[in-house]
């Protein structure tokens, strides 16, 4: 009866049960009771899940969503682009850290001591040339002054992708202030993903090969990387 009330009988079984219940009062009562119980259970669960969120729900959710960053910005950025950005930041840090060490050996140019790192005048299109101030904490002010044509000690130039000058200056300040370990950044930038290993390869003369089979595993000095 429970299965019948739960809808688990086939059409044939249901017809058979109905036919029997029509002539058996006890089974008819039992079937009715099982159906009533199933209906009561269903109604109770429907009541449980029929509630509506309170009116302030929308305002609360709106406030939380507004506090979130807009999803269309970051979720659309491919992960490789993020990785490339980090790599560029590490490379930039490497340039920034190394430059002060080389700085005293470089002769100052006629144009206010400004020098260039990289290809020099041939600047590729997607990059903008930006000036860099290794030790100064007020680097932004000096860059602005240099752009305005005022005399400023600018030891050299680095190439910065467009719209990343502010980030580069932030990183420069962080390194100079000791908040970022610049040396470690340089190490990371120079560290290859999987360094290559060189091993000497010795090959036996061909006439020894007939004395016995040489398997790749037993070959002297033969190291297969896979």
């Amino acid at each position, binding site marked *: 009866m429970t299965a019948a009330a739960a809808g688990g009988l086939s059409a044939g079984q249901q017809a058979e049960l109905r036919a029997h219940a029509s002539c058996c009062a006890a089974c008819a009562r039992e079937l009715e009771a099982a159906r009533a119980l199933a209906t009561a259970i269903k109604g109770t669960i*429907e009541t449980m*899940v029929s509630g509506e969120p309170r009116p302030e729900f929308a305002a609360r959710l709106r406030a939380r969503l507004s506090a979130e960053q807009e999803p269309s910005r970051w979720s659309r950025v491919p992960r490789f682009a993020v990785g490339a950005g980090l790599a560029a930041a590490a490379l930039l840090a490497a340039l920034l850290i190394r430059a002060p060490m080389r700085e005293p050996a470089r002769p100052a140019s006629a144009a206010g001591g400004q020098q260039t790192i990289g290809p020099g005048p041939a600047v590729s299109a997607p990059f903008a040339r930006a000036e860099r101030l290794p030790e100064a904490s007020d680097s932004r002010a000096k860059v602005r002054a240099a752009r305005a044509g005022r005399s400023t000690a600018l030891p050299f130039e680095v190439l910065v992708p467009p719209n990343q000058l502010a980030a580069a200056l932030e990183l420069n300040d962080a390194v100079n202030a000791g908040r970022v370990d610049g040396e470690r950044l340089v190490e990371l930038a120079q560290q290859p993903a999987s360094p290559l290993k060189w091993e000497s390869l010795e090959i036996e003369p061909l006439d020894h090969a007939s004395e016995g089979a040489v398997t790749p595993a037993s070959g002297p000095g033969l190291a297969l990387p896979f």
Partner: protein
Amino acid sequence: MDAMACSIAGPAVRSGDSLARELEACLAECPRLAHRVALGVLRNPTEAEDVAQEAMLRAYRNFAQLRERERFRPWLVRTAWRLALDARRAAGRRERHELAAAEARGEPEAEALAAASEFERHVAAALDALPDKLRLVMVLAAIEGYNTREVASLVGIPEGTVKTRLFRARQQMAERLQCFVKNIPVG
């Protein structure tokens, strides 16, 4: 789209952006669904609202991967369900702790239990005793307007599987609640 839902997404998205419009539509339609799924587990409107809020927030963060309605709603149901189960477990631990403390003080436990009738409490207990797979289809089928095909699309399983699970869930609940069969008026 009800009035409450229409006002949700407004300031959070930029107008004129197609992604924003899709997001707005999903955010308008789905909080009620998340809330009801959570209610099916928690049966506490306030806690269910918290879960629905969190589920919607996570949906918002992942919206770029969930743009299609066919993916958004099942994802939201699963997320709300998992969050509600987690909240239920946490609440269970808290309640057991508080109950033990109340018993130690000699206080009656009646407050929470008195709210629901005896039958409702037994139905809730029988629902909780179901395996998760059966319980989820039982709750979704009880949400207004969802037939077995829609439940199948929400859970991501064939409709025949939904019917089988529904039958097993109803049968197990009826067997657990047999003691009430004589008390329910036959209509």
